[in-house]
């Protein structure tokens, strides 16, 4: 039996385009939704035969903003996926949502349809930070969305946060963390803002109009998150992810544990047995290919042993499982043990919090040569 798999479905529609975002997401393409939905159905039909024999443990609707689609359509999509792919009974089904795209009514229908895990793009509770990120929602809409989800009965909520935006102080970040805890989510993701060159924000930073994030401040923010979330009983299980025990995200763990996954939708990635392939990115091209009965593959790569090794080391260190010390010459990792970036946990090298902040260094240092 092969390892359990995950299904990722990409919904590329958003209400507006945020300045920092380099995802495959588009504002103003709502008109394509019905056609896009049909294409997803069709792609699932085309892709499924190759996955016979794989048991799936998670489905993840990401974006973009999946909740820009009608709950009824999403329900139909999920049941179509259940018909085409073999899923275990307690499959984790996650949907990403942005605060202003959900109501108690729509959330009830999603829950009823089987989406039991809701990941809300809160980002911050500081209005200035939300503005600087060009997010259109207010802190109040995050609180409203969480309250609506709880009323609708969602048992598993995750909040996404971003830290280090222009103008955010350590104090503001602490308030965001406190506000997050006050809402009692089962899961929290906290990402350091990264400036991607091919974004509006990236260009502003390059042009010197907006200062880029201060890495030292972001380091302090990370350590603060570790402290605050840890004290509140959340387990740090991946560099940017914390969960109450038992609420770790099964789907995302699949990527990091290098388990197989199917990717459906524009630009989605799939992986199995050291081969990764991905769909064409523009929604229009994606739909045309699928409509002509073709798998919409845009590219692929076969990991050679050294690629696979690099991924293994880098991902295992990310999820704090660590990597066996026996993989490396002692001379490679001993300096990191001495400088307190790694600890030796019964033969596993695991990054400390300071080590997590320097993970790239660790990976490159361990695998150099």
């Amino acid at each position, binding site marked *: 039996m092969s390892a359990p798999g995950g299904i990722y479905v990409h919904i590329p529609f958003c209400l507006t385009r945020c300045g920092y975002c380099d995802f495959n997401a588009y504002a103003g393409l709502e008109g394509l939704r019905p056609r896009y939905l049909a294409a997803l159905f069709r792609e699932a039909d085309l892709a499924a035969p190759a996955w016979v024999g794989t048991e799936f443990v998670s489905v993840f609707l990401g974006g973009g903003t999946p909740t820009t689609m009608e709950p009824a359509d999403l329900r139909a999509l999920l049941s179509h996926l259940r018909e085409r792919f073999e899923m275990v009974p307690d499959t984790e089904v996650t949907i990403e949502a942005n605060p202003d795209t959900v109501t108690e009514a729509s959330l009830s229908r999603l829950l009823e349809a089987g989406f039991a895990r809701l990941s809300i793009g809160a980002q911050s509770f500081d209005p200035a930070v939300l503005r600087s990120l060009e997010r259109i929602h207010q802190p109040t809409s995050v609180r409203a969305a969480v309250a609506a989800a709880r009323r609708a009965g969602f048992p598993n909520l995750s909040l996404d946060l971003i830290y280090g935006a222009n103008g955010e102080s350590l104090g503001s970040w602490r308030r965001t963390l406190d506000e997050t805890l006050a809402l009692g989510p089962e899961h929290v993701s906290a990402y350091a803002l990264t400036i991607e060159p091919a974004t509006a924000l990236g260009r502003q930073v390059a042009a010197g109009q907006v200062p880029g994030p201060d890495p030292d401040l972001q380091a302090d923010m990370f350590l603060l998150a570790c402290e605050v979330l840890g004290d509140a009983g959340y387990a740090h299980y991946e560099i940017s992810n914390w969960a109450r025990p038992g609420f770790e995200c099964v789907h995302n763990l699949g990527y990091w544990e290098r388990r197989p996954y199917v990717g459906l939708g524009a630009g989605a990635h799939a992986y199995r047995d050291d081969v990764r392939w991905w769909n064409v990115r523009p929604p229009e091209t994606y739909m045309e290919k699928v409509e002509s009965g073709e798998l919409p593959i845009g590219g692929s790569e076969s990991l050679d042993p050294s690629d696979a090794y690099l991924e293994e080391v*880098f991902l295992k260190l990310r999820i704090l499982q660590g990597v066996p010390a026996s993989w490396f010459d002692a001379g490679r990792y001993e300096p990191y043990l001495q400088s307190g970036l790694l600890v030796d946990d019964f033969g596993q090298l695991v990054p400390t919090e300071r080590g997590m902040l*320097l993970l790239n260094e660790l990976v490159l240092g361990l695998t150099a040569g």
Partner: protein
Amino acid sequence: MSTEIFRIRNFCIVAHIDHGKSTLADRMLELTHTVDQRAMRAQYLDRMDLERERGITIKAQAVRLLHEGYELNLIDTPGHVDFTYEVSRSLAACEGAILLVDAAQGLEAQTLANYHLARDAGLTIVPAINKIDLPAAEPEQRAEELARLLGADPAEILHVSAKTGEGVDDVLKAVIDRVPHPGGDLHAPLQALIFDSAFDTYRGVITYIRVKQGTLPSNAKIKMLATHVTSEAEETGVMAPEATPVDSLGPGEVGYLVTGLKDVHHAKVGDTITLAGKQGAAVPLPGYREPKPMVWSGLYPADGNDYSALREALDRLKLSDSALVYEPETSQALGFGFRVGFLGLLHMDIVRERLEREFDLQLISTAPNVEFHVFRGAEEIVVHNPAEMPPGGDYDRVEEPVIYATIITPATYLGAIFELCQARRGEMVDMEYLTPERVEVHYLLPLAEVVFDFFDQLKSKTRGFASLDYEPWGLQEAKLVRVDILLHGEPVDAFSSVVHRDKAYEYGKKMTERLKELIPRQLFDVAIQASIGSKVIARETVKAKRKDVLAKCYGGDITRKRKLLETQKKGKERMRRVGKVDVPQDAFIAALRVDEGAKKK
């Protein structure tokens, strides 16, 4: 049959940079139908990619034009001061020179310099005002100034627009009428001067020559008078404008010779070619004075395995760039490489870029420096690498090269120029008003103060109106000290520099500040110190880095994350490990452009 000698004219075009030499050559190529209209492009003779990208001529180019029964051998020359040597060599192949002056700019420093060179070489000058089509042109006034310089009648000065073609016909006519035809006995023993050379992978060494006397048939057995090497030549020809074989080259003619030689050291620019055996000449023509390098820099292969490839490339390049000199050297920080001498910073940039492009090399260069003469008792040591400068107290005195600078400027900027030259330890020699508004000033200045950013400073302080030319003058004692740079406590030889004692602190401060910007944060604090001997004069710290991690890794696109890591890994591999510290290769050169003038022109 070669052309009768009285129907030959050999001339070059000389001028200040950008006054339109190559564009005038374009019009001549067109007017004489030498280049097909369809093949024509602007600055046709600027053939190198680098010349086209930078819009300047780097190498002199010879081309044959046929016009009204005359054979006109034209050489287009570069205007930049670094390439004055190219001009001198071209002059030796000519009887006449067109001296161009931009009708808007007027006389400039290289106008004077090139005029003096042409006059001293005994050439007939054909003066012309160019760019008369420009709205800002003042041709009459410029002609008067030029006439005064030449001691000529303003009526002799031609007016042209190399852009529109106006007056170009008259220039050719003047060349035919005024420039004497070459001399030289057809039957005398062959003497042909090599004024340029190139290396072709398939054909070997190609020389560009001017026949002074005798005849050079195709496929002759030839001899080089300086190196005494003989060879079976493969082809004679002329550039028209592409290589075109001819049966023979007679006295006065300019053309090329595929020598049959494969070793680049055997055909030196300035050598004389004759025929092998009894019929050959015994006496060489006066050659060229070897050009003197003005600046030196260490060139190292980024990949240590490329050392011999770099040697080979330098040998090859030397053949088409006889001004290039180099000697092997070793650096603790950079490994095996060469100390290379250049005519100036532009020359240095060009050589480096040619080595990288034409020979597919990745190079690290150290900051340029001038040479120093260290005297100890009766001993004189010439230092080309600052790291080799003995420590203070270990010698009697140091002398540095001094240049004689000619600056031409509108009188309004004189104050700014005095101030600049003063700050650069200059000593005024004299000053002369060319016109009531335009002044020619002469200064003696330490070369080290001029060669790096002086020109930029001059331009910015005079809003681009002043121009500069300089020539070597001699040596002069100076209070110089060696400033070393230490990273994390270890001296880095490639960062050592020799500077004037009074400027050492300022230099040390700027240098450590600059390096602080260039050296990426590492896992530990890195101290950057500048020192004279054991005395630290400046210090900066690159704080340890705290964050280097990809924030987000989900959505399945692990490929991209891995690629980011691989890119980072490559970046790390490209760094030089100096002691414990990773130093980017750029730091070795960029650091030394300490004055924010760090310019790429």
